[in-house]
């Protein structure tokens, strides 16, 4: 392998597999735009770091804080984005966040039927199933059947409320705090909160973990 003088380090070296057609297209588009000075060479790499730093652990911290701090919880329900920003979770885009509280009378579920809107700044990237037709088509028309496929059964006297994102608001479900966690620390609570619980397809239980 020859030494290159690129002025920037390689992110990956020595692919044994030939890059695919779309991989090549992405590289070509990016390089052309950088050559035209429409993008800076560093910007994509920086944004990859931003994306890598966003995982469900962030959302879990928000949920755990809301469980232990009623004043934070109130602020979170009033404005999800600014409450997350209090914890240092910046929003790198123009989206707003509405946090949906699961209660004894309402169970929330989030979906984007038209595409794949998802609270990425606080949860990271969505799972494949969230972006595919079965979930997107059916979560909005038969949510209880969808929940049952995840093993979740909500009694009929509790409202299942489905939020379909279509504009610049994103959603995060604030699950119910499980019983038997009164003496848990905030970190122990956060460790129970999964991505799927914050989408609303499963509850948080003592047995669950990230």
């Amino acid at each position, binding site marked *: 392998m020859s030494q290159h003088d690129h002025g920037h380090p390689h992110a990956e070296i020595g692919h044994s597999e030939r890059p695919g057609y779309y991989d090549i297209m992405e590289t070509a588009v990016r390089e052309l735009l950088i050559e035209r000075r429409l993008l800076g060479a560093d910007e994509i790499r920086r944004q990859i770091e931003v994306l890598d730093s966003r995982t469900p652990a962030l959302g879990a911290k928000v949920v755990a804080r809301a469980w232990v701090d009623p004043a934070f919880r109130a602020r979170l329900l*009033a*404005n999800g984005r600014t409450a997350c920003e209090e914890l240092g979770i910046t929003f790198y885009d123009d989206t*707003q966040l*509405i946090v949906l509280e699961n209660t004894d009378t309402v169970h929330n579920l989030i979906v984007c*039927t*038209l595409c794949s809107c998802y609270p990425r700044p606080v949860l990271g990237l969505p799972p494949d199933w969230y972006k595919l037709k079965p979930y997107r088509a059916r979560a*909005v*028309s*038969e*949510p*209880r*059947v969808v929940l049952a496929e995840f093993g979740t059964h909500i009694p*009929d*006297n*509790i*409202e*299942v*409320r*489905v*939020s*379909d*994102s*279509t*504009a*610049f*608001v994103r959603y995060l479900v604030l699950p119910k705090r499980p019983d038997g966690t009164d003496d848990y620390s905030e970190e122990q609570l956060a460790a129970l909160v999964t991505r799927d619980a914050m989408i609303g397809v499963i509850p948080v239980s003592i047995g669950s973990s990230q």
Partner: protein
Amino acid sequence: MGCRNGGDARATFLAIVSFKGERDAILKARFEVSSQIEKQIREIVTATGEVPSFGVGDRVRVMTRSPVGHYRVPTYLRGRTGVVDAVIEPVAMDNEEEAYGRNAGSRRHYYRIAVPMTSIWPDYAGSPRDDLRIEVFETWLERI
């Protein structure tokens, strides 16, 4: 968001993200709707779209037009009636226009509306309490 000046009290409280009941609570707790303020409000003319056309609790109907091209109101929602659950702030671009490269221009409000599942799906098999929440741009809604 936030207070612009003392005489703008009504416009200011409308500028706070308002959930059911919260707008009234804020009004009661924070603002004195004095005759002096009322007089000032009548002298202000607001720009198109600046003040929301609909408020929390309003019954609205989603219009039934079928655009060619980009749209963000799913077919399943067309013609349905619901109740405004929240006025989304700030005002924002119509995403139908934004999709064709407009990054600025006349902005209006989006509204999060609540629609019962049984009124969307004829054979809805879940609980009659179940409902849908969805954001809709102002120009897709009419008051009923």
